[in-house]
């Protein structure tokens, strides 16, 4: 599936509803509901190959053996969990936080150079809700202060106002993102606001459907 037309699928002057910009995060989980095809050899392949899966028909089977099999692209699957962010959140934006260096020449002309962007997105409030697997996962890290374990998320920024059901919807995948929990408490309900720190390790592609079980397809020749 390839998205050949990146124009907005909106009528002239039609506004894009906020719900058409979705952020989904994904993390490796032995109890995850989804499987993602590995496109490249994971860093822990030699030591944790048994946490990956092969697929036969609709059945996924964990890799077994005493030593890691030879890596083969598009053969092994990672078991993951996913969650759409923004339940009970009224307002959230991706802040790109550009690091800008400006200068002015002797003619008074201004120049601006962007050294880098450090995109992040805060979700506040982010209430503790029954059924939220991400909150359960992050709360476990919080209880153990396991801050080394909160930097392995994949984040998908999905723009449902670009694309269609035939060609898929434009999506940016950021690998190895960090999600920080910013506080815990609140008034009448427990709030657990979080911030997604995007890695800028981007793969551009498409997703095929509006469900957490979507398949992400990278664009060929995309610039990461």
């Amino acid at each position: 599936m390839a998205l050949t037309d990146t124009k907005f699928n909106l009528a002239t002057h039609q506004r894009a509803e906020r719900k058409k910009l979705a952020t989904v995060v994904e993390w490796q989980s032995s109890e995850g509901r989804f499987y993602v095809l590995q496109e490249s050899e994971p860093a822990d392949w030699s030591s944790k190959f048994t946490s990956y899966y092969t697929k036969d028909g609709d059945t996924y089977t964990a890799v077994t053996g005493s030593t890691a099999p030879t890596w083969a692209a598009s053969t092994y699957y990672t078991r993951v969990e996913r969650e759409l962010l923004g339940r009970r959140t009224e307002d959230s934006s991706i802040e790109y936080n550009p690091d800008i260096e400006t200068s002015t020449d002797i003619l008074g002309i201004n120049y601006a150079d962007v050294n880098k962007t450090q995109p992040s997105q805060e979700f506040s409030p982010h209430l503790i809700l029954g059924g939220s697997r991400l909150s359960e996962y992050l709360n476990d890290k919080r209880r153990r202060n396991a801050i080394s374990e909160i930097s392995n998320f994949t984040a998908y920024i999905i723009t449902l106002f670009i694309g269609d059901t035939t060609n898929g919807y434009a999506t940016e995948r950021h690998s190895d993102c960090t999600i920080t929990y910013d506080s815990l408490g609140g008034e009448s309900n427990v709030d657990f606001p979080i911030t997604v720190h995007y890695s800028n390790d981007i793969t551009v592609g498409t997703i095929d459907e509006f469900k957490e079980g979507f398949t992400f397809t990278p664009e060929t020749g995309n610039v990461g």
Partner: protein
Amino acid sequence: MDKNEAIITYLLQCPAIQNSPLYFNFINAKDDNKQIVTQANDKIIDKPFIDGSIQKRFTFTIMDYKSIAYTAVVKELNNMSATLVYPNENLEDIIDVQGIIDWISEQEVLRNYPDFGEDCVIDDIKALSDNPSLNSVDTSTNPPLAKYSISIQINYVDYSQVLFN
């Protein structure tokens, strides 16, 4: 399910309601009859979330009609003290109406809510006052009827417009 039907089905679990005739919006008022009156729920308080879900509020009022008695609740014994005359119909009636409010409070603790369908998640249900209001007394009927009211508020999230699930 229509929300009004869901409310009626729900209220029929209430002991203070299930043994009395229950009417919807229109009633030929008689002693111990109860009436659900719908209220316009202002959309301006709807709170949209970024996933497309919307926090909404459903409010309705229960009217409870009770015959009244012109009986003093205290009997003066002397200049220094008085005693409660019991039973007193008016006092017993308001305790009966209060039972609806108490039942609603118990259901909130139990998280027993009306069934608004699979697209809605109810956050809470509560009576808007701790005790019933006495709205009016109709002395043209025989016996005269007091009209008590209780406003009930349900806060819920409507997920029907969510695109991504």
